[in-house]
Every structure is written in structure tokens, then in C-alpha cells.
């Protein structure tokens, strides 16, 4: 366990080094957040239909997406791992006295956390100070804030478990391009990153509910704004944990099979 913690710590600290990149990312995210909300404001203005979420809930949803972008996006990838597999350096990784799944898991988790910590506070602050309807609103009560934190953290763990499959698939395909595209692009759509899930058609909503993706992003964000009451959030948390367990077990099984037939590339 100690080894995993120190891998985690090292990654975390090295992630904090890239401050200029974080600043640039910050500006980009603020701009994107504003533009997205502006589009929704325009849509809501002359809307005759009654959408499932109010505009202030929607703005909050968008800002939370931007603030915790590195928690929820699947695009976040570690090229080092891809190179390990394709260049044959995986052999070194196998010599280490620790499980490869947990090792990579800790690494990926740390990257996401450090990137979020650099970015989240400034965006949080600015988003709170923006004028209505662009601002991030407070959660309606403390009783929805605590479940939000919990669900967000489980969501993060779940997201890392999903992204592990992208890395595992490279053992077979040898090129990360195809699998990242398929898993990341569809996953991002189904977790409500392109348009919020409550604004999708009913049939599509049902479809997203049976897949694990929405539990990483859409669910905690709606717990925050109180659309999902705390009691329901508890039930959701159990489903999240179930998904997490299933994905980790399947992931470990896949990596075991991959390693049994691994070909060390290169000479």
C-alpha cells in the first residue's frame, strides 16, 4: 500500500509544476463555460416547452463541469503508459514488486487530482462572482452539499476505472487512437458533457441511465443543485459503488489476460 501512496504523491507533486499550462487552461475553461451558458440562455429565452432544469441549475451544472473537468473528462490521458506498452518498456513495469493495475490506478488518480486542485479554486471564485444568470449558485442546503462531495469522489474513482480500459485495450490494438476515440467520445456524450442529460430526449436519458458514464459527472452535479434529493443520492451512491466494484474486477481480469499473452516489443 505504501508504494502506491508514494507513486500517487510523486505524480501529484509533478502535476503541480505546470503552472503556466494551468493558467492557460483556466482562461480557456472560463471562456468555454461562459459561451456554453450563453447558448443555453438564448435557448431558454423563447422556450415554450418546460425544460427539466431551471436556468440557474443549468449554469451551476456547466460551471461544475468546468471546475471538475479533470475529474470527469475521459480525454485525460497519460501518454507515458501508452509508450510503455508500445515500446516494450512494459517489461520494467512488470518487474516492479507491485500490482500493475493498482500502480497505474494510483498514478492516474493523482494526475487528475493535482490538475483539478490547480484549477478549481480560481474558477470557483470567478464563477461565484459572475452576474446572474451566469453565476454558480450555492447548493440549496448543507444536506445536499455533503452527498455531493461524496458522490463526486466516488465518481472520480469510477472515472479512473473506466479510463483504465482505454489503457488495457492498447495491449491488443497497439495504438491508443481508436480506443480513446470510441470510449472517450461516446463516454463523454453519455455522461452529459456535451449537453446536460436532463435536456436530452427521454429515450436517450433512459439509455444513459443504464450505463456507468453518467454516474461520474451528471449524477454528482445534480446532487449539488438539489435536483436529486439527499435520500435518493444515497441510493445512487450504492449504485455508484456497485459499478466501481464491477469495473475494477473486470479491469483486473482483463489486465491479467492481457499480461498472459503480452509480447514485449522492441529489442
Amino acid at each position, binding site marked *: 500500500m505504501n508504494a502506491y501512496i508514494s507513486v500517487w504523491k510523486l505524480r501529484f507533486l509533478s502535476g503541480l509544476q505546470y503552472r503556466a499550462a494551468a493558467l492557460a487552461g483556466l482562461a480557456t475553461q472560463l471562456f*468555454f463555460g461562459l459561451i456554453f451558458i450563453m*447558448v443555453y440562455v438564448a*435557448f431558454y429565452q*423563447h422556450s415554450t416547452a418546460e425544460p427539466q432544469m431551471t436556468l440557474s441549475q443549468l449554469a451551476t451544472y456547466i460551471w461544475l463541469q468546468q471546475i471538475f473537468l479533470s475529474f470527469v473528462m475521459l480525454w485525460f490521458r497519460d501518454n507515458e503508459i501508452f509508450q510503455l506498452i508500445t515500446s516494450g518498456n512494459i517489461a520494467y513495469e512488470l518487474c516492479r514488486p507491485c500490482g500493475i493495475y493498482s500502480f497505474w490506478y494510483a498514478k492516474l488518480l493523482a494526475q487528475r487530482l493535482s490538475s483539478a486542485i490547480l484549477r478549481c479554486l480560481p474558477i470557483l471564485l470567478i464563477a461565484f462572482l459572475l452576474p446572474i444568470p451566469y453565476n454558480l449558485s450555492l447548493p440549496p442546503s448543507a444536506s445536499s452539499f455533503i452527498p455531493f462531495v461524496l458522490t463526486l469522489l466516488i465518481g472520480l474513482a469510477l472515472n479512473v476505472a473506466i479510463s483504465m480500459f482505454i489503457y488495457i485495450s492498447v495491449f491488443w490494438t497497439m495504438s491508443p*487512437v481508436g480506443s480513446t476515440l*470510441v470510449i472517450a467520445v461516446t463516454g463523454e*456524450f453519455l455522461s452529459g458533457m*456535451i449537453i446536460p442529460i436532463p435536456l436530452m430526449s427521454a429515450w436517450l436519458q433512459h439509455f444513459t441511465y443504464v450505463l456507468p458514464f453518467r454516474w461520474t459527472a451528471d449524477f454528482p452535479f445534480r446532487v449539488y443543485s438539489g435536483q436529486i434529493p439527499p435520500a435518493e443520492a444515497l441510493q445512487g451512491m450504492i449504485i455508484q459503488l456497485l459499478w466501481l466494484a464491477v469495473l475494477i474486477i473486470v479491469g483486473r481480469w482483463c489486465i491479467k489476460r492481457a499480461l498472459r499473452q503480452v509480447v514485449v516489443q522492441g529489442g
Partner: protein
Amino acid sequence: MYLYLKYVAILFKSQTQYRLSFWLLAIGQALTPLTVFAGLYFMFAQFGQVKGWSFYEAALCYAIVGLSFALAETFARGFDMFSTLVASGDFDRLLVRPRSTVLQVLGSRFEFARLGRMLQSLIILLWSLNKLPLTLTAPKLLTLILMIVCGTLIFAGIFIATASFSFWTIQGLEVANVFTDGGREMAKYPLSIYEKWVAVFFTYIIPLGCVNYLPLLYILGRTDGHEILYMLSPLAGIVFIIPCLLLWKIGVRHYCSTGS
């Protein structure tokens, strides 16, 4: 020009060497913006219209921006990746050759796999034109082509300007994403739905609105007089790329080599 075509031909041959990987990449590239388009579709399915714009009109807007962005990415990719040339010191090699640096950087990289993206935008373009109740007269068609070409010029201009800044610093250049990716995201909806300051910025400073929104009004027959002005507004793209090229010239003069 001859040299440029030669560059293109060589890169095309080298990229199609790995045939399967090339096609997979092209298909994948086409899929990415497809989910964005699906997002657009579901928004209109939910709300019906946005400030008087229908789904097909917005789709036309989206397709034109998508097409010009994909074209710019294919042909000006060398500028997009330019900071790596400066960081490694490889730019020196380009300087000693007796040809213009712009030409050489343009020729240093092409991504033909972006063809997938182009194709996707093209299909949406034709589809939305087909569904919209308008007849495509010769001047309208001409305007449409002008929009795409000048849109490409604007995105290429942003790439060149960003690349020029890498002569001074190669840190934090990701800010340019606000103008490239952000501009693309923004311009996929008609400019009139945004707040005033966004519209002003993207009309007068980065004239994406001039190549997209204003001529679109003319094509859809929404103008009141001054049609010729709306038709010719894409030419702002040409005006935009001139200072970008100037900035490049200044940057090249400032260049100090790195590396060993």
C-alpha cells in the same frame, strides 16, 4: 506553388503508407464532431428554435465553420505544431534554405486524416441546404464558397499568430485555444444569440462573424438592403490574415536559436 504541391504529395504518400491506421484515424476524426452535432440536434429537439433560428439554419452555420476549421487544420497544421520546432531548435534548418519560411512551415505538416472531419461537415452542409427552402443562385453559391475559404484563412491566421508568439515564449500558448477551438464552438451557432460583447469581439477583432453570420443572413434571405455588403463581408478574412503574417515576419527576425 510548385514546391508547395510537392510537399503535399510527399506527405500524402508517407501518411497513406499505413493504410489501415490512416482510415481508422480518418473515421475517428469524423466521429468526434458527430457527438457535438448530436448535441446540437438534441437541443433543437428539446427547444424547437433559438431566437428565431431553426435547426437546419443552425446546422448550415455549424457545417460551414466545421468545414473551414478542418481545412485550416489540414493545411496549416505546421503552424499549429510550430512551438515544437522552436523548442528543439529545428527551425534553424528552415532558415538556411533559400525559400520563404511561411511556405516551409506550411509544408512541414499536413494531416490528411482530417479529411474525415471535412467529409462529415460537407455531408451536413449538403443535407441542411437540401432541407432549407432556398434556391441556390450563382451569387449565393459564390458567397458560400467565399465563406468557407475566408473562414479557413481566419483560422490559419490564428494558428500563424500563435506560432509567432512562440518566438518569444513557448509557455502558456494554450490560451490560443480560446480563439481556435473556442471560436469554432462559438461560431457553430448564429452570432446573434450571444451577448453583445462576444458578438463585437468576434466581428471586429477576430472576424469570424463576418465569414459566418453576416453572409449567412444573405444566403437565407434575411437581409434588408445592402446585399452586396453582406456578400463581400467574408473578405474580412483576408484582411485578418495580413497582420498575422506581419507578426510572423517580426517574430522570425527576433528568433534566437536554442538547442545544441
